[in-house]
């Protein structure tokens, strides 16, 4: 929309407590407590203190080391959260990296998602790659080309679908705190290649399915191969298709 180029966009910094009105900016840095009123279109948004974003945010890069509340939708190619973020709208993002805590009330559309911390997403998630080594909850469908989950706590998604789905117990010696029981809960898990450990699901469907240790699956449907190790609890196994 804008005809402004990067050199005409002013940078701005809130160091103490302050307000800025929305608009077009270069780099926006909030080091103290800051409120941005209105929609923000920035090159980069960096939050080291506390930020209250009252409109939508469009930025090439968003980095949250402090605490940020986004009251509208967020669109960015890179979203890095090592502090705490609360997105009350939806999120469209290239790469989302969470090593802190993050809640998102809407849905997430991403190229790549890497979760090391805690993430709660109320809507659906779409990504080419979804990698989690922390704790997450997805209220809707988690749809990703590759789903790689290392369990370090209780994780859940309503449903999971994709090409390759790989769920394993995180290594016990990792320098990561445990958050209660380490398992994954979902209603349905569907993929081409599925490997599961410590998973509870009503139904698992796929071409090649491996049910590893400590799973409770009510029904497994497969079109290719089904393998399992000791401790497999699957009440019904059905070879679907011809």
């Amino acid at each position: 929309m804008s005809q402004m180029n990067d050199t005409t966009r002013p940078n701005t910094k809130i160091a103490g407590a302050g307000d800025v009105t929305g608009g077009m900016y270069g780099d926006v840095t909030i080091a103290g407590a800051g409120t941005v009123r209105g929609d923000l279109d920035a090159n980069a948004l960096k939050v080291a203190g506390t930020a209250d974003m009252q409109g939508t945010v469009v930025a090439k890069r968003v980095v949250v080391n402090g605490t940020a509340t986004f009251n509208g939708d967020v669109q960015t190619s890179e979203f890095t959260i090592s502090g705490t973020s609360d997105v009350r709208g939806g999120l469209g993002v290239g790469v989302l990296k969470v090593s802190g805590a993050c809640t998102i009330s809407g849905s997430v559309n991403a190229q790549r998602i890497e979760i090391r911390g805690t993430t709660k997403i109320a809507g659906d998630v779409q990504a080419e790659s979804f990698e989690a080594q922390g704790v997450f909850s997805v209220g809707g469908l988690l749809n990703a080309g590759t789903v790689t989950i290392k369990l370090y706590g209780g994780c859940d998604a309503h449903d999971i679908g994709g090409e390759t789905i790989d769920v394993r117990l995180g290594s016990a010696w990792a320098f990561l705190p445990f958050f209660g029981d380490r398992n994954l809960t979902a209603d349905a898990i569907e993929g081409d290649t599925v490997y599961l450990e410590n998973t509870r699901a009503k139904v698992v469907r796929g071409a090649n399915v491996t049910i590893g240790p400590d799973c409770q699956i009510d029904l497994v449907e497969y079109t290719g191969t089904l393998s399992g190790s000791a401790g497999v609890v699957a009440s019904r196994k059905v070879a679907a298709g011809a």
Partner: protein
Amino acid sequence: MEPDLISKKDLLLATGISYGQLYRWKRKGLIPEDWFVRKSAFTGQETFFPRDKMLARVERILSMKDEDVSLDDIAEAVSPAPLPDTFSREDVIARGAVSAAALDLFAERHPGTSELRFAEVLAASVADTLLRSGDAGRDEALAAIATLEEGWTTCEKTSCDVVLLRKMGVAMVLLVSSASELLAESGVRVVARITLPTQIEQLKTRLMA
């Protein structure tokens, strides 16, 4: 189960595509969100699709894939989003997208327009469909064009149908969301109902060929 729905499992069996492919196509927007119909089943919820539309869509995607069309290009071809380009009258006719007669009708409302935006070609193509089927007369086709021009912003956001009603020779054009059922007083006849996403898809096929 309703006969016009197909379960996800039956769809995969019938078409030979995999779960991974289906989820990828969903991510790329090749299959509209509202075709995923959730219904309760003993395993929790199962997904169903409108059978005919879904089978046709899968077949179309597979045949385009055979021609090495990228998923992003397929998405553009099948999505109801308008094409960004403008089209000359000659081009539209040469591609067999809209008849010259319907374009003349459009030109009557907008004299001197040489380049048409996608939405305008669509309006003309709806008029074309109505005229060709004999459902509408000239004035009714013009009314359809006017209705679409006014309501286009709504149609861009939700799936809409153009409906032509007639009672005692008096015609009326409506834009309704595709999911709505129409109940009219007796004596009112639904002469034509054109689903815009389908019309858009057909139009795009012609224009992009």
